[in-house]
């Protein structure tokens, strides 16, 4: 129901023999990886303006987020309208780490601690000065939330739009929760004013470039990893589950376990995107949990092309680049442009912008060499 399955269901006998090379058979992905490498080199070699570096880093974080949603929507047919929750979990834990780190180094209590009249950070902030622990906490927390919610939903066969609605309610409730000031997480204002990253001053050219490189590198790794996953036996099972879950279950495959595992993996990737995003923008507040933002992630994918990891990246980068540009140049017009774009893509290009490439010449090299 979400577009053409045949693009990725490459029934190649060679796949199990050399799974490590799976990503190489997707020319689009290879192209994107080449572009990423080129951008990395450009960042190091050309030293562009800091705002540009920063924007590139943010785009890479959004692309990771889009890939995480593509994994469940494009390959499992589960549209989550609550992926902003996992993104926010990563972002919030990262912000907590940055604040705890700055507090430990400078001794100045964060704004919201002073605002609430407290003297120290709440107890559950303990240990967050250690980056590896913070990273593990971000991923673990996202996976745990995803596990509980996914188990409750998949076990009772909550599917399709039902799942979308409930996941939207989940992110909405989380937003209301984070708007409260007594949670110890900054409340309405969120958390901002991160002075240091691993002891280096935030905002210096080296740190900005480093963050952008880290985001790009992570994007490349996530793309290669997820591509290996979806091209392997698990990926084939995912597509089967998407296209006819009942039949797959009848054949003896445990679809709940499969969906739950991929769902948790997707949540962790989204949290990773949040971890990379927050130090670059320098703020996190409950607005990332607004249902609109979570829908927007799905919109990036719909525009880029669903069920095609490269499509997710293209959509996320294209829409966000456009947004960066237009919300500064034409802030009034941006919502109209976005809604118009969505309608055009949804009505005329069922597989997103990737359809544009196939409209005229249908070059087979873009279709992964797997015509049926």
């Amino acid at each position: 129901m979400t577009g053409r399955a045949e693009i990725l269901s490459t029934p190649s006998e060679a796949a199990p023999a050399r799974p490590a090379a799976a990503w190489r058979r997707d020319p689009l992905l290879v192209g994107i990886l080449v572009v990423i490498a080129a951008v990395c080199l450009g960042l190091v070699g050309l030293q562009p303006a800091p705002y540009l570096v920063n924007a590139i880093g943010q785009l890479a974080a959004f692309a990771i987020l889009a890939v995480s949603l593509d994994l469940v929507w494009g390959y499992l047919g589960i549209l989550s309208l609550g992926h902003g929750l996992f993104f926010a979990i990563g972002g919030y834990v990262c912000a907590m780490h940055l604040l705890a780190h700055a507090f430990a180094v400078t001794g100045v209590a964060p704004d919201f601690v002073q605002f609430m009249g407290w003297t120290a950070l709440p107890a559950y902030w303990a240990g967050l000065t250690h980056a590896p622990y913070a990273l593990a906490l971000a991923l673990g927390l996202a996976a745990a939330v995803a596990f509980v919610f996914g188990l409750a939903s998949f076990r009772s066969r909550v599917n399709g739009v039902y799942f979308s609605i409930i996941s939207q309610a989940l992110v909405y409730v989380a937003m209301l929760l984070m708007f409260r000031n007594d949670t110890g997480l900054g409340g309405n204002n969120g958390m901002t004013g991160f002075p240091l990253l691993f002891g280096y001053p935030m905002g210096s050219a080296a740190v900005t470039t480093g963050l952008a490189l880290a985001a790009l590198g992570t994007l490349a790794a996530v793309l290669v990893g997820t591509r290996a996953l979806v091209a392997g036996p698990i990926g084939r099972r995912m597509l089967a589950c998407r296209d006819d879950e009942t039949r797959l279950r009848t054949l003896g495959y445990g679809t709940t376990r499969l969906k739950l595992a991929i769902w948790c993996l997707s949540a962790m990737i989204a949290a990773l995107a949040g971890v990379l995003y927050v130090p670059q923008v320098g703020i996190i507040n409950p607005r990332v949990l607004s249902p609109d933002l979570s829908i927007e992630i799905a919109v990036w994918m719909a525009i880029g092309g669903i069920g095609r990891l490269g499509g997710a990246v293209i959509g996320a980068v294209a829409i966000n680049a456009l947004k960066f540009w237009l919300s500064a140049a034409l802030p009034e017009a941006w919502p109209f442009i976005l809604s118009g774009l969505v309608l055009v893509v949804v009505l005329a290009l069922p597989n997103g912008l990737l359809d544009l490439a196939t409209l005229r010449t249908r070059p087979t090299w873009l279709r992964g060499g797997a015509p049926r």
Partner: protein
Amino acid sequence: MAEMWDWSPRPLARLAFGLMLMLSATVAAAAGDALDRPGLVAALCGDAAALGRGAEAVIGSAGSAAPDDLAFAGGVLRGLLDRRLACVGTGAVLLDRVGAADGRDVLTGIPASATGGRSPVLGLRQRGLVEAGAGIVALLTGATVEARSAGLATLARRMGTLPEADAILERARTAEADAGLRRAIAQAMQAAALDAPDPARRRAAIAAIAAVPSSAALSRLTSLKADPAYIADPAFRAALDTGIASVERAVAIGNGLALAYNAVSFASILFMAAAGLAIIFGLMGVINLAQGEFIMVGAYAAYGVQEAFRWLAPGLIDLYLIAAIPVAFLASACVGIAVEALILRHLYRRPLMSLLATWAVSLFLINGVRVAFGSQNLQFGMPSYVSGGVPLYADFIVTWNRLFAIAFAAVTLVATLLILKRTPLGLDIRAVTQNRDMAGALGIRTRRVDRLAFGFGSGLAGLAGVALCPIYSVNPGMGANFIVDSFMVVVLGGVGTVVGTLVAALGIGGANVLIEPFYGAVAAKVIVLVGIIVFLQRRPEGLFAARRRR
């Protein structure tokens, strides 16, 4: 209810009345019932002590003095306060305006010169007494309700210092024609009785307050716990404790009723928002994320009707809310049909894409309205039938605006059920909901049914917009406040059933409003969401799943 002073403690007040007369006789020595006019004038023109005695004499006799005596005293005192009273020789002259050369003699009314006269100087204490006297006279003889209630306010400020207050208030209440002012006077008497020296009267006053429970009465009684008599007098303590207990119980019940009333009114709005959603979802499997914006369109249509009335028929403006009902329905229905015809028609095989398309529509509508009307809240003039309310029990007030929403929802429910069960369109909608292919094979034009049903569902959202504009603020982003809750209603109630939607709306609206006062609005939402997820474990199809084949 507040009229109870009309019957219960009347004998008591009469007794006090007599008592006061005896007391005041000592002050207004020779006066008795009749006012000694020359004596009063002489006192007012005398030294400070005599002036004070004169004012006291007026106050003391006010409970029984003849009306013309009162009017005379009032005129003199008012003149004194306004510095229009000039003492000349043995008498006094009342001037028409401050500083005039001549006026009329106070006693005889004959024109007289004020040359060489002096205005008595009022000390702080004397001024207070004179003001009280003038206020009392105004309360008793004032020509308008405003003048009399101003007099009551003056009197109430110095109630504690005036032993005669009771007799005066009793007289004023008996003579008063205005019901509202009579109630205010009764309250003032109650307050006076609470502070009275006689313990029996105080206990009676406590019982009288407790008989009309409200949170104001509760705080009034609770404040009496600090009174010395609470410790010293066991009978007083018992009376006060009983009174407080009964008022507390009544206030708790009243608050419970108010909470239930709010819950039902919120559920009504939720039902109206979700009913259209449930029909559309059941029929086409389309999640309409723009439903909240269709509500907004309905509310803006109501605003347009109000403005049209204001320009074309200002006399009938109170009727605009009624006139807005069909307009809002049609406006939202037209938008809905346009969306269906232009966009959703092409997306029936792809429900998740139609979800994104309706999101784009909602984004477009929000920003379109924002550009056209601005993002501020719209100002609605509230007709008399949706403003105010009737106090029913303790603090529970049945407010008309919420009753309007509840009644509106009830009518909508009945109308929707009738349309679905008793009209050809309803039959078609039910047939297509149950089995689209079969219905199509039997010759039903399913696409046409889709379009009409989508228009109908959108129109219901428009009606919700009319129902909520007397209660909630109306602005371009208002739809977002309802959309998540209405989706929860649809999921919980089961798709395509109006009854399920009703039960789920009552459940979710009720739970939200009932949990909120105890744990806060956020906790209420969290608990409701968790409750729904747990519930779906047992019944994934919702409360009342429509039987159908796909």
